[in-house]
């Protein structure tokens, strides 16, 4: 299994800070999630970190067994 990690308000939306998912292409993983959560995760301001490293390019993400993919919304000000 792979793990999705939701930060900030995304954790509220997901109902939990983490979620186990089946490995595979990110598009397939998102398709299996509730639609409103999938839409929020795809927001262009949400950054991704795979196994602790920020994704910088737009290359496709494919989750392998044991991977951890974090969804990082914009950080808070003030």
């Amino acid at each position, binding site marked *: 299994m792979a793990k999705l*990690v939701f*930060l*900030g*308000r995304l*954790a*509220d939306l997901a109902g939990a800070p983490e979620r186990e998912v089946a490995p595979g292409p990110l598009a397939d993983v998102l398709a299996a999630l509730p639609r409103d959560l999938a839409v929020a995760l795809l927001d262009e301001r949400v950054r991704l*970190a795979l*196994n*602790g490293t*920020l994704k910088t390019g737009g290359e496709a993400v494919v989750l392998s067994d044991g991977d*951890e993919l*974090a969804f*990082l*919304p*914009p*950080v*808070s*000000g*003030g």
Partner: protein
Amino acid sequence: MAIDVRLLDQPFNPGAFVGPFTHAHPGLGGVCTFVGEVRGGDGIEALELSHYAPLTLPGMEALARRALARFDLMGIMILHRTGIMLPGEPIVCVSSAATHRRAAFEATDFAMDHLKSDSWFWKREKRGGVWTWIEPRGQDHADLARWD
């Protein structure tokens, strides 16, 4: 001990860290310290800071190294709380030790500006029993532009 960066998940007394940090740099000229506290008023009952361990601490360490490279410092300490805090509790403490005063001031100012905007922290406030996430705000970008 040129860099001392920590995430703290319990209330802390800044003086208990600043004292040893200062003493670790004998011969310094001065230390500039900023301590930010959870603001009271406005009906705020609590503040919660969440972080993402694989990124947050390395990000703070990278900021400390940038400050050390940019200003003429003997050392810099960055402490940041996580978890649930009450009004009046320290949330952040940045201390810069330098031979010359100006470098100490500027490094602490620089680190605070970048901590607020560049760090991987997500905040929510509790008012009337309801938690609300805090969004990014414009002032931070203005603060950062000072260093470009």
